[in-house]
């Protein structure tokens, strides 16, 4: 999996880098140590550009998706920035320190196992926020950034907004609390570990009515789970993805609870699979869920029908 030390050294020679050869045990250690071992790479002074290019090539050869971007995001993180663009063009010729080289190698080795970049660097941006990420908690997808445009631009920018968050995964609850604390929002958000499919009465008891219900539930069709990318299969919680035979298992439960959780004229936003909008419309019509009205289907940035907006229209509150 890793290029042999001699091969690397000759490649580096061609790149005309200065190589400081060490004697003794350090010399025997290869440049690319296995991710498991704690061995440090041999001391080689590489430029930012060369190191990034080297690992990009490595990713590409191993079939890792988005090889160039993966390498760049990890390098930017090692250098303390979000993207390479933020560092300016001069950075490419700078030489990496020992610590930086070691860090970069360690993280790239993780990426080589198809771990998503968000888990490798343990953070990612969601709109104007930077959130901590940790496996197996589900990584927010870029399309989801679009769904939050209507009810509120961002919780941070609307100080009077209060939220209640519910998830069946203890890990997810813990990570959400951590992010809330980091962003200073702990006084405005309540996080509960509850499962909508089994803890319905608890939810109805604990949570007072809200003006907006937003959910990105597990909505994949079970049969589609096997065709997912290794990044998802190996590292993300399947319970956050699998929605049952028709992907509607959790969605149906949310639809059933919504009229009792929403205030009068309150809105329900669901992120779903592109096949779901007509199914949800049918569901709402057939079962005549007390006062739940299908308002509209919204499209994501790739123009697929992904978001369903419903409204509770009852007579009493």
């Amino acid at each position, binding site marked *: 999996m890793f290029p042999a030390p001699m091969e690397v050294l000759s490649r580096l020679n061609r790149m005309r880098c200065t190589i400081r050869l060490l004697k003794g045990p350090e010399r025997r250690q290869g440049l690319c140590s296995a991710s498991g071992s704690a061995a440090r790479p041999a001391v080689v002074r590489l430029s930012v550009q060369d190191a990034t290019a080297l690992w990009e090539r490595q990713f590409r050869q191993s079939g890792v998706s988005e090889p160039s*971007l993966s390498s760049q*995001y990890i390098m930017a993180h090692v250098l303390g920035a*979000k*993207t*390479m*663009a*933020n560092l300016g063009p001069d950075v490419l010729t700078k030489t990496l320190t020992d610590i930086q080289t070691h860090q970069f190698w360690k993280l790239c080795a993780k990426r080589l196992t198809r771990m998503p970049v968000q888990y490798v660097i343990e953070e*990612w*941006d*969601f*709109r*104007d926020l930077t959130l901590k990420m940790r496996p197996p908690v589900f990584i927010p997808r*870029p399309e989801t*950034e*679009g769904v939050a445009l209507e009810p509120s631009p961002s919780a941070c920018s609307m100080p009077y907004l209060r939220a209640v968050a519910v998830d069946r995964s203890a890990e997810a609850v813990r990570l959400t609390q951590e992010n809330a604390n980091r962003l200073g929002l702990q006084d405005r958000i309540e996080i509960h570990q509850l499962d909508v499919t089994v803890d319905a009465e608890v939810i109805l008891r604990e949570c007072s009515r809200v003006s907006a219900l937003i959910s990105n539930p597990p909505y994949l069709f079970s049969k589609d789970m096997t065709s997912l990318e290794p990044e998802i299969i190996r590292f993300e919680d399947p319970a956050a993805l699998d929605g049952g035979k028709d992907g509607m298992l959790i969605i149906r439960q949310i639809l059933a609870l919504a009229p009792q959780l929403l205030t009068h004229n309150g809105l329900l936003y669901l992120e779903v699979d592109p096949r779901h909008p007509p199914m949800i419309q049918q569901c709402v019509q057939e079962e005549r869920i007390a006062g739940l009205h299908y308002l509209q289907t919204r499209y994501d*940035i790739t123009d697929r029908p992904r978001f369903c907006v419903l409204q509770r229209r009852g007579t009493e509150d």
Partner: protein
Amino acid sequence: MHKLVRLSYGLCPCYNFLQTVQNGARSTLLSTTPKPHPVTCLPWKYGFTLLRRYCDNNTASDLLRLDAVQRHIQGLVSEYNHITRRLENGLLNDSDRKVLNRRQVELLPLATAYQNTENAMADFTEVECLLQSGSGEDQQMFDLLKEEQTQIAKRIDALNKEVISVNNSQIDVNIDPKDLRIDTFRSKGAGGTTAECQQSRSQLQNRDTAMRVLRARIYQQMFHRESEKRKTARRHQVGTRSQSDRIRTYNFTQNRVTDHRIGYVTRDIKEFLRGGEALDELIAELMAQADREALLELLEQNTPGQTIEGKASGVQTLDL
């Protein structure tokens, strides 16, 4: 900003109007706006033959006499009426209403000035009719009517100027989404105006930033284009400065000054060189001529058959 530039280049208020013709053609009308109906120029034309007796060589009325100019004004006025009708209709959603309201506010001064001019014209013809019909009667009545006539003529004069100057130019950056091409993760843009943004790991944020940058760049381009145009206009006036590119001849034997740019002749060199009325008159004539030429050139570019939609020219690409 345009007022400043206008003064420094010494062009008359009519330059503002040139901007409008261009911007009016460039502004995005809502798709449901009907085409301006055929112009009934009768009141205007009629008014002008009378006015010529009372007004000085008025640049505003000269311009207004041109068909293309009249058509343009009529178009804007009918657009205003159409928008007013639609707003009163009430069957609009919020965003449409906002757009229409904004446009209505833009067009309001012109529409009012036009309406006032029409009223003044009507009064004028009324007075004229009275004058002609009551030609046998007392002198006092006659004098009163004559006075009335000159008053109205002055009103019309002022309103004409207003109509022209009221269309102040705005560089409005309207980016039609159809002209935008958004490439995510592209490193090299193809032609046109581009804005690249990779500052955030959130694509939504990158897109917002890139849009802002693109808008700023387009604005800069448009501004640059406008100033280039102004520069060329000025260059037209300055000329080649070659020996044979003579602009004025002072003939002392015959006591005559001839300006060759417009074929203007005046006697009494002494008065002229003193910077008196004769010089002012010449300058006014020159400015009028320059504006006329510029306007005609502009109108020739925007030939009547073609409709110019509102979009920034060229391909705009937005690299994220």
